[in-house]
């Protein structure tokens, strides 16, 4: 892993890279006929039936579909949490379909940031330490860890809450800590699984605002799994799954901008700090 640490995941494209290499690196995700078959006793469950897909750097993709459509399986494979049964997965040009467990851990650490529906912060561990977590496994020295974690917290607007424990934070704040954690190691993509599923409307939009800003300002690739059509409208591309296959893949026409939506919402007296102790699940 140490060799990866110093590597900037987005080195400026230099002139000596061939056109092909440039294209390959900018194609963050390339899936080739991915199959995933689960064995449950004697029954075979064909969760993915030959999915091919490309996602380029800077895209904001929403993956939609009913439960059982294969979108969670897709998410686990893209997130390097699971191996495909058949097919190939290229992440930033490198084939990761056959990498072992330890190797997948390194890839997740370096290239992928996760945001979950239930926030998944380590309990009884302060916000800043939660954000530091990926850096610990990347072997970053303590002082630099803290510096980078603070910077990431500032980026999601939580600089002043770095000492707070997860149970002292509202749902929206917890999700923002999770967001800071997902981007602290400069990943190639952020994978968000129903990130607004446990949040109220206003907080959901606030979180989407951060996603959109990161996507715009840092050219960060975002993949969002959601079943809320409203939320999917913040993406610039929607991929719909059904029965283990991609049913539709289209660009969003009237893309919503969270910043604008927020200004149109009726002013709220409640602020984040008052709905503390929101339960995790």
């Amino acid at each position, binding site marked *: *892993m*140490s060799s990866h*640490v110093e590597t900037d995941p987005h080195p400026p494209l230099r002139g000596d890279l061939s056109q092909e290499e440039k294209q390959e690196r900018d194609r963050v995700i390339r899936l080739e006929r991915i199959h995933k078959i689960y064995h449950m006793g004697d029954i075979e469950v064909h969760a993915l039936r030959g999915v091919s897909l490309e996602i380029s750097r800077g895209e904001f993709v929403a993956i939609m579909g009913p439960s059982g459509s294969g979108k969670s399986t897709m998410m*686990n494979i893209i*997130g390097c*949490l*699971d191996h495909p049964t058949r097919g190939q997965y290229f992440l930033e040009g490198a084939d990761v379909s056959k990498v072992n*467990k*330890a190797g997948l*851990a*390194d890839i*997740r*650490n*370096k290239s992928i940031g*996760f945001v*979950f529906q239930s926030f*998944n*912060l*380590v*309990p*009884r*561990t302060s916000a800043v330490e939660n954000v530091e*977590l*990926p850096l*610990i*496994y*990347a*072997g970053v020295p*303590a002082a630099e860890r803290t510096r980078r974690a603070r910077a990431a917290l500032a980026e999601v607007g939580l600089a002043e809450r770095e000492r707070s424990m997860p149970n002292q934070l509202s749902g929206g704040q917890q999700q923002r800590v999770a967001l800071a*954690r997902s981007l602290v*190691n400069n990943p190639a993509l952020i994978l968000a699984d129903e990130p607004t599923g446990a949040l109220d409307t206003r907080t959901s939009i606030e979180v989407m605002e951060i996603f959109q800003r990161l996507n715009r300002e840092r050219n960060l690739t975002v993949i969002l799994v959601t079943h809320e059509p409203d939320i999917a409208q913040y993406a610039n591309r929607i991929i719909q799954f059904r029965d283990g296959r991609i049913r539709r893949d289209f660009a969003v026409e009237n893309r919503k901008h969270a910043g604008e939506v927020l200004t149109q919402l009726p002013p709220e007296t409640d602020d984040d700090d008052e709905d503390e102790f929101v339960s995790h*699940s």
Partner: protein
Amino acid sequence: MKMNLLAILKVAVRALNRNKLRTALTMLGIIIGVGAVIALVSIGQGAQAMIQDQINGMGTNMMFIMPGNVFFGGASLGAGAASTLTEEDVEAMVKEIPTIAAASPIVRASGQLVFGNQNWFVQIQGANANFPLIRNWKVDQGDFFTDVDVRSADRVIVLGKTVADKLFPGIDPIGQMIRVRNLPFRVIAVLAAKGQSMVGQDQDDTAVVPYTTVQKKLLGQQIPSINQAMISSISQQASAVTEKQVSELLRQRHKIQPGQTDDFMVRNMTDVAQTSAQITTLMTVLLGSIAAISLIVGGIGIMNIMLVSVTERTREIGIRMAVGARPNYIRLQFLTESLVLSLVGGFVGVLIGGTLASLVSRVLGWPTLVSALSVLISFAFATAIGIFFGYYPAHKAAALDPIEALRYE
């Protein structure tokens, strides 16, 4: 992968801190185990050290050679057997057996010792000038008698500490004349105090004179005879060889045919001492093993709690894996936790065990010895237990599937 050991340790300590009571109870198993090992082994080693002291005090590698076959003899050996050992036998042994460091004939007599209006009945030992060397017995005051005194059968006497105290309360005994069986003897030395023998006899209640003096002056023997011989071999390792050579030499000198029983008996004091040393060693090992069992029980406690901890923190493990913790890292994390448990428990156990041992020696008066070795062994044992019983839970944690772990409620 770069392992951030400090970060791992921090997480482990924090996790243990979170459940203080549970951590304390789990550690208690190790504390009791290590404490028991230290305390019991210390008591055992103390007993061993005491016996070793007595062995050394008895005389270095000493052997007695007694005439007659007291224990195994049949009727045919009966009466004449008692005088089969002679001064010449002793001289021959010294001359021909190189592993003998020193030898002395022993002639016994008893008598009333009188000084002024004090008197004391005592067993008198007749020996030669080698007596202090063979018995490893220092002279406290004055000088022991010499070969010259032995050759001329001088009436000189060396007193044991008890006898000196009884006859000369508050008086310097050296140079005083006392009467033994109505003969005047000059006190030339007092032996250093030796205390009780292993059977509880006061070894200082004795007096030593040249054996020739006992033969000629006290017993008035026409034909001088000796009761037994006392020899010391050059080392403990050599004592078996010495014993064998003494037997061979005496059989040859006494013209005993092969198949015939010895007309003498060699009593190797080192053997006796070694037997009791072996018994205490066995006792120490036994006590230590029983204590070690409680240490293993403590280890099972660690395993139990670590399994609970892994289950409780399944989701946390999932999160750590998702953000890039390799399985090895997770394994190390939980191993560190069980190691911290067992090492801290081991440390406290050593302190408690040492305190217990010193308490035992103070209250019960038993000798105890907390050796660096027993501390080291207990620590090694505690570490091994931490790793052994921590491995399975740690492995279980490392083998978790991140997807399942993240979904765990």
